[in-house]
């Protein structure tokens, strides 16, 4: 506790006089994102950061895709079975054997190709990082223009952990050569469910 009060006192005595902060007006920004075209912009950016993006128009197509994509693999599908993790007794060694994980993303960001997942969507925090192949599913309507809008959506979301994921795990630490699959997934597939995808009605 001593360190705490000493640091706070020093900060109090050294800080400059108060500088007010105006509210930041994101809406005043010039924004190049064309609102009608968010999903194609999202797709372009997600591909730039190394993800593959497919668009499917019905639940049936989606199910077919998952069946083909994951055939014969150790897979956790949280899209159709959100309770799956609580049913599985998983220790670290078991988790490391998971080949594919499918999970819904809450929303996607057009300006950078990122998707937001909170604990609710990933079940176990390490799951989107430890699997070899990650599939994230997002509804076409759940795309926001930029990070300002993204944080507006997150505000009030009181979950313990959340992450923006943009592309698969990557590194360029050896001579700046880009290598995909540093520690986490070697691939990220983003499935965009078009109109009618998530609610066929």
């Amino acid at each position, binding site marked *: 506790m001593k360190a705490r009060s000493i640091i706070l006192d020093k900060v109090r005595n050294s800080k400059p006089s108060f500088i007010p902060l105006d509210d930041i007006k994101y809406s005043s920004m010039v924004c190049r994102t064309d609102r009608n075209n968010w999903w194609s912009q999202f797709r372009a950016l997600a591909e730039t*950061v190394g993800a593959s993006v497919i668009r499917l128009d019905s639940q049936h197509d989606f199910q077919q895709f998952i069946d083909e994509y994951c055939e014969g693999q150790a897979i956790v599908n949280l899209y159709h079975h959100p309770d799956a993790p609580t049913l599985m007794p998983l220790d670290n060694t078991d988790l490391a054997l998971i080949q594919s994980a499918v999970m819904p993303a809450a929303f996607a*960001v057009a300006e950078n190709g990122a998707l937001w997942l909170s604990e609710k969507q990933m079940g176990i925090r390490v799951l989107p990082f430890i699997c070899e192949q990650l599939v994230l599913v997002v509804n076409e309507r759940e795309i926001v223009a930029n990070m300002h809008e993204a944080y507006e959506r997150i505000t009030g979301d009181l979950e313990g952990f959340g992450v923006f994921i943009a592309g698969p795990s990557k590194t360029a630490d050896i*001579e700046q050569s880009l290598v995909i699959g540093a520690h986490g997934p070697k691939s990220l597939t983003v499935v965009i469910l078009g109109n009618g995808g998530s609610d066929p009605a």
Partner: protein
Amino acid sequence: MKKKHAELAEVFNADESMTDWHDETLWWIRQKRDRSAHNIPEWEQLRQWASDIKAHTLSNLDYYLEEFERNAIANGIKVHWARDAAEHNAIIAGIIRENGVSRVVKSKSMLTEECHLNDHLKDLGIEVVDTDLGERIVQLRDEPPSHIVLPAIHLKKEEVSKTFHQKLGTELGNHDPVYLTSAARDHLRERFIEAELAITGVNFAVANTGEFVVCTNEGNADMGAHLAKVHIAAMGIEKLIPSQKHLGVFTRLLARSATGQPITAYTSHFRTPARGRAIHIVLVDNGRSRLLGQEDFRNSLKCIRCGACFNTCPVYRRSGGHSYHTAIAGPIGSILSPNLDLKANADLPFASTLCGSCSNVCPVKINIHEQLWKWRQVIADKKQFGLFKRLSMRVTATVLSSPFVYRITGRMARWVLRNWPAMINRKSINPWYKQREMPEAPKESFREWYVKNGQL
């Protein structure tokens, strides 16, 4: 005495092709940053906002620290305070001991470098494995990182291959980055799975929610933090921002400034520990409050450690990060390090051309080159120069303050350059000519030319 920047740069410059490669690679990253920034029409507005948010936070830092602490504790995070590097190391060692752990994994944190945490833990018999690939490479070589974002940028793949062959048993002579990265992946996966305790840095801490954000491309911070039972995050007190919505500004700027990516692959927000797990956060001062009290240098606390000022700096690019002999190299390190130890780091504010390129790229608009210039004045006042530099500065002052002496000296210098170049070209007398060619001396000075031709 510790070697100085100029001597260490000379060592780096000895390998000319390596120096060229280093220079070109960093310039290429700088260009990627430019393209990325130009894609955002509101870029300048974002920089201004980032700078304003930080200025406001610093002016109210005690309040935000307490607000953060309160919210973090309410979230179930254990908060610790450290006045200096020694306390930071002791707190972390204490948590490791309490948990009865002897091996830990650590993702990138420049603060733990600044505090020399690895050495401290090693002395206590605790094994620390750095999990960022670049950091793991330099750790296996027993070297410090040479860049805050690209820790192994001073190495070619052949050197990495040799190190991996010796330490990880990879094939001799296989220099393929894909092969080497996959070997590191397997090696580090084992460590992640066994690890009981993980240490990470903090990119941003949010006062109004008590959460903190960690950005990586590899996902190594998450692999460590989520697999281990205990997560310790080390954070400098300047990392705070007031509210979550401000993250929108910083997450747009950080990766674009660092590597030109639109965002890092993972931007992770830690708010509460997972069930049955623990998160500790260590709030570290280590000279930051002193910097806050100095008007001339306060702005350097806005730094978000993107590395853009490194990549653009003509001196950094040609002298290599290790020549700065401190944890944080480059232009910003040359401002921060004299605050930690003026005597040992008095050479660093001189490792700059003051061209201002660093200030131009800085996403939080720190007046980097002006602060370097200010440090030079402080250092001159405190007489932290060698005798030769003091004398030559006095001579320069005399020459520049008298037009007559200036003209005479100029004429003499041109005569010497034309007729007796060896006098000046001797590198032992004039270090300026190291790695440089001689200019050809003009016959007349500009003044003489102007007197003749000026009235045309």
